[in-house]
């Protein structure tokens, strides 16, 4: 005989008032009929019947306060069921699980198990280059452009969309020539509607395409951040591994020149916070090419953070058929024994210049370019700090919750006993980016600050 149970209005409700009965003993009820009203201090709710039959007994009188959730409040006799029938004899289709059984069997009631350990990320080393490989000087812009063109030639499902990517040839000319080679179906100019086109691209990725979304700058991606995080990054997890969003969101990030607070900001830490995303921020032309190709091939959503100031800088890129670098592997730019400097993207320019001066002054610096921010190559950093005992981080972003803060925490957790000095962070100043030339300069990290931090941790100042 089905019991009507005191329902919960919300997962936190434990008891309530049975305010009113709308049926009486002997009434015939069917699915959806309102049987009673219950009240809590927050809300009133109607209790509907899920069963059909005759109300046999009212177990809790109306007006009763403090009725515990899952207490039987009435008995309904199913059609064809006799009053004396044992519950076991009731037709299976109408039978309800007894509340006590349900509670006993619900695994939720079991004490929570220990948290399983997170899997450890193992980065692969860069591939060996063939002996005597030709090195070609390219700008970062050309390297990015080649990466996209090569991948688009190889896979017809790859397309690029964004503002001014086609006819204008790219707001920063990164997509130059792609329209001419691949046509308007695969190189798509969008309206200035980041939220909409980012979401559209995520939907296209669900359906099997491989979108590259160019944001004119990452500042404008703030309009689209819900689609990047809530739709793309979380999709695999919340679908239990079924639906993927293999795609790249890319564009210039970081401090630009004289464009003030809304157009000049580093989002590295923001995106690196999010599980489900891969976050890449290259510095050199070779890394820009090898990592963008890897990003486009990745089965995961990738945030690819470029830098406007670096687009025109040149570097040597190996001339091989298919130059692809491993995601998640830091690069040791200079081996050293006295102090570790870790940076990425534009921060590497300050760190590299500081390193040159420090080495000239006799400090044996180990310089690491993270290249990928998520997954972060902790091992390379930890191994280095175990050797040098000192760490200085350099980034354009704000200090609180930044990449340097994360590195500092990891070193503190995993190499505390090896430290000979506190970890120091060189960051952008904790202010919105000012417009005035002098203030803008002051707001950014600089070479002297990196040198000062190294001097401090090596006790040379």
């Amino acid at each position, binding site marked *: 005989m089905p019991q009507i149970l*005191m*329902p*919960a209005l*919300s*997962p936190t409700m434990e008891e309530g008032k049975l305010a009113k009965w709308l049926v009486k003993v002997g009434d015939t009820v069917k*699915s*959806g009929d309102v049987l009673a009203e219950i009240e809590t201090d*927050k*809300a*009133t*709710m109607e*209790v*509907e019947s*899920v069963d059909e039959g005759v109300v046999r007994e009212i177990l809790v009188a109306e007006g009763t306060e403090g009725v515990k*959730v*899952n207490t039987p409040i009435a008995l309904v006799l199913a059609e064809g069921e006799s009053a004396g029938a044992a519950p076991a004899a009731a037709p299976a*289709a*109408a*039978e309800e*699980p007894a509340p006590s059984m*349900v509670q006993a*069997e*619900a*695994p*939720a009631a079991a004490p929570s198990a*220990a*948290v*399983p350990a997170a899997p450890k990320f193992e980065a692969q080393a860069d591939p060996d280059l063939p002996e005597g490989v030709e090195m070609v000087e390219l700008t970062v812009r050309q390297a990015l452009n080649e990466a996209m063109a090569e991948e688009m030639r190889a896979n017809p499902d790859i397309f690029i969309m964004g503002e001014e990517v086609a006819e204008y040839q790219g707001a920063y000319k990164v997509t130059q020539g792609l329209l001419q080679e691949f046509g308007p179906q695969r190189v798509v100019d*969008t309206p200035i*509607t980041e*939220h*909409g*086109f980012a*979401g*559209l*691209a995520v*939907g*296209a*990725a*669900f*359906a*099997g*395409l491989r979108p590259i979304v160019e944001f004119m700058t990452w500042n404008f991606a703030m309009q689209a951040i*819900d*689609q990047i995080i809530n*739709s793309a990054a979380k999709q695999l*997890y*919340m*679908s*239990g591994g*079924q*639906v*993927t969003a293999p795609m790249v969101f890319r564009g210039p990030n970081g401090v630009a020149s004289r464009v003030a607070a809304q157009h000049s900001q580093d989002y590295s830490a923001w995106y690196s916070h999010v*599980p*489900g995303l*891969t976050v890449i921020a290259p510095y050199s032309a070779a890394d820009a090419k090898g990592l963008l190709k*890897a990003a486009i*091939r990745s*089965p*995961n959503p990738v945030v690819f953070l470029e830098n406007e100031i670096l687009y025109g800088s040149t570097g040597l890129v190996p001339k091989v058929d298919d130059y692809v670098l491993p995601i998640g592997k830091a690069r040791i730019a200079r081996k050293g024994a006295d102090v570790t400097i870790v940076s990425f993207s534009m921060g590497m320019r300050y760190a590299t210049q500081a390193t040159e001066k420090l080495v000239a002054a006799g400090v044996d610096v180990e310089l690491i370019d993270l290249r990928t921010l998520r997954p972060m190559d902790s091992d390379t950093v930890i191994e280095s700090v175990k050797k040098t005992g000192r760490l200085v981080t350099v980034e354009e972003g704000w200090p609180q919750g930044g990449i340097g803060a994360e590195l500092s925490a990891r070193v503190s957790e995993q190499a505390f006993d090896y430290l000979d000095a506190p970890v120091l962070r060189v960051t952008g100043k904790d202010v919105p980016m000012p417009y005035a030339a002098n203030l803008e300069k002051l707001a950014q990290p600089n070479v002297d600050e990196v040198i000062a931090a190294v001097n401090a941790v090596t006790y040379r100042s």
Partner: protein
Amino acid sequence: MARKATATSAKTQANAPQLTNEQELDAFREMLLIRRFEEKAGQMYGMGLIGGFCHLYIGQEAVVTGITMASEKGKDAQITGYRDHGHMLVMGLDPKGVMAELTGRQGGLSKGKGGSMHMFSNEHRFYGGNGIVGAQVSLGTGLAFASKYKGDGSVSLAYFGDGAANQGQVYESFNMAKLWKLPVVFVIENNKYAMGTSIERAAATTDFSMRGASFDIPGEQVDGMDVRMVYDAAKRAIEHARSGNGPYILEMLTYRYRGHSMSDPAKYRSKDEVTKYRQERDPIEQVRARLLEAGVVTEDDLKKIETDIRAIVTEAADFATNDPEPDASELWTDITIEA
């Protein structure tokens, strides 16, 4: 010039489009399955077996049933917001998997990691189950972009509510859909309330079928409580999109009997209003009456269907109650794919 198609709204019960007896019976079964499933989900929520948010589809069954009948199953894509259980049942997803996802068990469609608002099936081309109001409109437009890109002839059916219809990204999507002539049907399920805020208190204009006017997207207002009207309009809209004419808007005038979610105080509308819909416009009762009147079935035949559906729902509920929670190791899976 923006058009408001009036053919369907002018139809009355007397000249309503007709379904075959078989279609009427199918619609009856599908809608009854949603109704009984949702009633059971509501009961299980009350018992503490389902947590968090749980948005029931009771009252709106004709919308997804009629549209799915007019679509090509397995080919056309569907995507909706968080009131998604009905969509999955009609698209043929396993009721056991849906219910077990509601209870957060390992046999759930998302292994218990998604819950009521996050279920998907590549096989059935169902893309959720999306918890952020309005996000599915851009995503659904992207499904249509992929269809056109691949030239596979599929149509994307993107459902959203009257509340989402005021979101900015909806209009960004309308613009791109029309600009690029994407095969998408935007289905606005107007159930009169965005949570507890009536359309009159939230929308400057309440004829949502006209919301595409600025983009020259045709729209119709449809009686979303009558599965015949829904099917008829959906046939027209899907045909329009599939034959390369771009997007189409269907505003489904519908009603949810239950609260927005399970913890709805129901203080914002009168009991009479709910009762009136249930008694006079119920989508399932309309079909039942027609089937009996036409002599297609007897009361006993319908009772047999009812018993069969109860058995499906009971089986789903039992499975969802007894299936274990996901293994603790599942905490760390499906975050990214190893390349």
